[in-house]
């Protein structure tokens, strides 16, 4: 690590008097933050990736800060398997975890890193230890096992009567038919496989832009502990409404803690989560993401207001609008062309309409099916691309017939019971590799809905979608193009890829 002023260090926004000089992490063993590591996390860490540089910063109301990670609960093993929160939320990977990093850890430790703990780092807990085939979903797709009780439980832990029956159709990992871990075990559970979501920029994740949830017409639920409304944007299946509940859930499952973290530990975790921002800060072609009037990178992100709805005169990704016509005498022709491509991608994202169809959550709430709109219809929160309303939407990444073929994943048959409305678009019988939000609510209409993710730091955390089905940003664009028959040109696709690579 070098603690010199990094070539990519960013211009400071007004409210931050000076951006901290970046500590650059050039080597794999420096990039990886092990549980129990006692290094100090500097105010600004810069990590290279295939698109350029990602920056992770620590910023409080007092300004940039560093963090002594020794004994800090986010960085310290809290359970039995040696993992800490940081294991799956690495500063180098936008506070998530790329499959590249996962493979590097396997290579460096011969599969001994706590990252590969059998509980969820293996395809099923009793898979043969040390065998890459036992961890194929993690090594090849970046997927961890998420095991949910069946039937679903409410916030108080009481069973919910589900509106549908569930059967296992395909079980390549053997976990859903396993006598101990499966659907018919003594403690019935469903195992699905998902990517870790980034723990950064959390003020956007918890922002409540409007008091009501348009997808069901009800006011957003209130956290009984804090009295604050819960945004509904935290987890893929919405099972935890607050950062605190998420931390407890993660400790008890992924970290195999015997008990929930203490109040002091939780406070430490939440304080850290609220100060960490992560975003791409430099592009290999475009250069500084704050150059020529752009407002990319984490410092700007840290200071924008969270929860604002895009639209009209303020379309999303205005951060890069200046690049459309920017004059920069110091820029190379390649830089100028790349920057214009990013700006075109931003404009296309907000303005190019297509028919959104069979996307329950959006097309089931009264807008009609289909409904003509843009990418920003769902990705409508300024600066992150989250959904200001809780973003539980069925994009078709997990539900048949729209999901990409995924022989490595389980397949479930869900049959809506008589007396309940069937799924609005898929009918009474739905085949899915991940029931998503329905594993939390037990409702037919929620089958396959996955909470929309933030779009920041994408360059550092491939693959994409909750099931890792898009290996690259181009795969992601191609999925949408096929799914909604958008008809993007090659140039439009590249513009969108370039946009997403600088977020």
């Amino acid at each position: 690590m070098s603690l010199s002023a990094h070539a990519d260090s960013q211009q400071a926004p007004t409210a931050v008097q000076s951006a901290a000089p970046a500590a650059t992490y050039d080597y794999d063993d420096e990039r990886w933050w092990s549980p129990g590591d006692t290094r100090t996390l500097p105010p600004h860490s810069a990590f290279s990736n295939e698109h350029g540089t990602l920056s992770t910063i620590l910023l409080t109301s007092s300004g940039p800060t560093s963090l002594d990670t020794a004994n800090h609960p986010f960085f310290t093993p809290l359970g039995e398997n040696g993992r800490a929160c940081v294991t799956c939320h690495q500063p180098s990977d936008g506070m998530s975890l790329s499959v590249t990093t996962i493979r590097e850890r396997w290579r460096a430790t011969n599969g001994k890193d706590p990252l590969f703990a059998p509980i969820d780092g293996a395809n099923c807990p009793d898979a043969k230890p040390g065998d890459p085939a036992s961890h194929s979903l993690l090594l090849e797709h970046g997927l961890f096992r998420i095991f949910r009780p069946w039937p679903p439980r409410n916030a108080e832990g009481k069973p919910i009567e589900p509106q549908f029956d569930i059967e296992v159709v395909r079980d390549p990992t053997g976990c859903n038919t396993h006598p101990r871990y499966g659907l018919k075990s003594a403690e019935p559970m469903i195992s699905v496989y998902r990517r870790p979501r980034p723990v950064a920029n959390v003020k956007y994740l918890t922002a409540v832009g409007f008091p009501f949830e348009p997808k069901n017409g009800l006011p957003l639920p209130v956290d009984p502990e804090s009295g604050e409304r819960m945004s509904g944007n935290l987890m893929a299946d919405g099972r935890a409404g607050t950062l605190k509940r998420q931390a407890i859930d993660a400790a008890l499952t992924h970290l195999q803690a015997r008990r929930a973290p203490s109040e002091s530990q939780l406070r430490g975790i939440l304080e850290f989560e609220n100060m960490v921002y992560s975003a791409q800060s430099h592009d290999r072609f475009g250069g500084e993401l704050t150059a020529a009037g752009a407002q990319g990178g984490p410092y700007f992100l840290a200071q924008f207001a969270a929860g604002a709805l895009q639209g009209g005169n303020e379309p999303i990704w205005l951060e890069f609008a200046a690049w459309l016509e920017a004059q920069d005498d110091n820029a190379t022709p390649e830089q100028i062309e790349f920057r214009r491509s990013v700006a075109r991608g931003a404009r296309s994202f907000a303005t190019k309409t297509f028919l959104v169809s069979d996307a329950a959550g959006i097309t089931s709430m009264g807008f009609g099916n289909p409904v003509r709109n843009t990418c920003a219809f769902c990705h409508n929160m300024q600066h992150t691309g989250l959904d200001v309303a809780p973003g539980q939407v069925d994009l078709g990444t997990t539900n048949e017939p729209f999901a990409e073929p995924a022989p490595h994943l389980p397949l479930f048959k869900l049959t809506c019971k008589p007396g309940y409305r069937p799924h609005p678009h898929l009918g009474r019988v739905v085949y899915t590799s991940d029931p998503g939000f329905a594993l939390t609510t037990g409702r037919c209409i929620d089958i396959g809905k996955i909470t929309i993710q933030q779009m920041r730091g994408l360059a550092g955390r491939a693959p994409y979608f909750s099931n890792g089905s898009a290996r690259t940003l181009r795969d992601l664009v191609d999925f949408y193009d096929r799914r909604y028959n958008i008809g993007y040109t090659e140039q439009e696709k590249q513009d969108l890829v370039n946009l997403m690579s600088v977020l």
Partner: protein
Amino acid sequence: MSTRFFIVAAASVLAWPNVGRADAAPNAADSQSVKLFVGCPVYRDSDSGRKSGCWLVTDPATGIRYDVTLGRIKPILGRTILVEGIVAERDTSACGAIVLEPVNVSVLEGTCKSHMLPAENYPGHRFVLPQDVMQPTHVPRELPPPPYERKQFTIEFELNSDFLVYQYSEVILERAWLYAKASKARRIDIVGYAATQPIVVSGERIVEDLSIAKARAEMVAEAFSRLGIERKAMHLSWRPAPPASAEDVLPESAKRRVEIIIHP
């Protein structure tokens, strides 16, 4: 302003301005009768920006195609719909069919063939955000001023549904909540109604079970609870809807409702 007036007003602002194609202006004598039928929706992919597509449906009894785009709920392609609406005094230039306004659409469980039409030079109804919409959280809410008296708010629902519709229900719910808060309501009656008297529409038997009236009342109570109103202040009941009154513009739709009565 009454709730029902609000529905009409909210729908009206979605209208595409008349652009001079008066080729099929509705017959004045026909305009006040309520059209009630079940049909299969067709989507016209007119592109005047986001949410601008046309929803058309033909009354099987007459063969006349209507434009039901201005309903607060839009159809789902491939599913039959129950339509109740009144022929509007406007031309057909937006979508190429006689406009119903006000109009209510209920998506039924019946399936039908999905069919889409090209724009064929019809612009569709350009989406305009209703003037009376939910404000962002950071906008301070103003409490209604006194005097406070018994006040009723009404929310209508689609057939066999307890779904609170976006850009309609939440505005009424918040307005009722603010009134209850300002008036320090001692009691809130929440009365769910269902259209339990069967009718035959386009050969289909249309009826609701009383249980949906209960579900509607409970949904509204859940909303109030999440807004901070104590459950003990709410008194829930549910009952079959009485026959529509003369002032109900869309009489069948009016039966599917919840009445919220605030007692200061």
